[in-house]
């Protein structure tokens, strides 16, 4: 499975898909594969403000726990609450039903700084 080209990616392995000033955020296929089967996800609340580079939640697999880092600054307008009951969706469909947040982006220039799918594929191959 490769990383779709309809979105951009952060060094912390989040993907960002922008529609107008709304960014949908999830974790990449590479990230979910590294984590293994996800059993808990801790996400913020709708209405919270988040800042690029800060942690916004946690994702935990049987073996390990990782922080989730905000790829852009803005206000959270929607949270994928379905992941609370079925966190394994992040493994089965990381780029689709496994999305985590919708953010109203404060500064669209931050999106431009993220990696294209080609750049991200090269990034994970090197790391």
């Amino acid at each position, binding site marked *: 499975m490769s990383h779709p080209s309809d979105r951009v990616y952060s060094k912390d392995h989040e993907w960002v898909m922008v529609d107008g000033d709304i960014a949908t955020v999830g974790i990449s296929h590479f990230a979910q594969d590294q984590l293994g*089967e996800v059993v808990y996800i801790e996400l913020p609340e709708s209405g919270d403000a988040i800042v690029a580079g800060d942690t916004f939640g946690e994702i935990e697999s049987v073996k390990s*726990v990782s922080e989730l880092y905000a790829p852009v600054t803005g206000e959270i307008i929607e949270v994928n609450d379905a992941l609370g009951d079925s966190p394994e969706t992040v493994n089965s469909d990381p780029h689709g039903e496994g999305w985590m947040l919708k953010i109203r982006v404060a500064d669209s220039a931050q999106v431009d700084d993220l990696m294209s799918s080609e750049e991200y594929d090269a990034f994970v191959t090197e790391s």
Partner: protein
Amino acid sequence: MPEPLVRTPLYDEHLALGARMVPFAGFEMPVQYEGIIDEHHAVRTRVGIFDVCHMAELRVFGFGAFDFLQKTLTNDLSKIGQLGRAQYTLMLDDDAGILDDLIVYHSGDLEYLIIANASNRVADFEWLAAHAPDDVELVDESDRTGLIAVQGPQALAVIADLAGPEWTAPARFSLAEATLDNAIPCLIARTGYTGEDGVEILCRASDAAAVWRLLLSFAQVTPAGLGARDTLRLEMGYHLYGNDMDRGVDPISAGLGWVVNAAKGSFVGSSRIAEIRASGPARRLSYLRVEGAIPRPGSPILHEGTEVSKVASGTFSPTLECGIATAYLPSELAQTGTELEITIRKKHVTGRVVSAPFVTSTSLSAS
């Protein structure tokens, strides 16, 4: 510079299966193939196979072998007087600190085979050598011995198929010779670390890959890694050396008094054991069920706002779909039903003391 990691004879098999490899006890071992939870369920419902070639095999033989091990280990060796029988036992220091937990097999006349933890291989051998009399010989056979665990409700059917119609399966905690696929000489031990019925296959290290491939030729067999091995053993409340016990812990506090036989006479650590039994242990290894987060080794445990312990072993139970943990609790708190607070990073969750095992219905409990 850290020591370079050792590879088991199955290393190339793991790579070919796409395993994720991690360092463990000085070895490069598979932590998972397809996924820990699927591998866990495969063992609980069908058959999983594990590379445990990293474990140590120490052979002890000679006219003094029985007397020597009866004095050096905690369980009563006379209970496995019959050839082929095996028992779980401990090796202690003089202060009753646990040096290792072992399975001892009565593998031959005047001869015992010990399977020990990989991380303790050298220390165990040196301890045994230092205590052994002249009429006992010790051989470290770890490098030339392969060990593959075959675990799950359908494990015995697979082994019976490979061993041929003349073969009779050994009873639980016993071993028997077998020739797999009419070609490979093995010892089949009906032991394991998962709570399921199953065996551990001892073979030449050079035959291990062939045995592994024979096992994988059965559709119901799934390769399983160290990740599933840990979730399976913790669901059963089985101890892991280094997490649930070490030299700083005595067997009574660890809940392993059942393998410490006082009636057999004195053994290394026995006088200290008698003192601990008389006064009662100050703390006991306890089992905690945790909802809402996964306890990890080192997570602080609080009672009425005061830290009373840290998590020893902790993981997610794929069977119960909740967190499970062990911890040494002050004896007054080590009562089932006691609720404690566990701090898991920024979260505070409740851990409830339960009795082991966490999971009670397995092919082993049914047999």
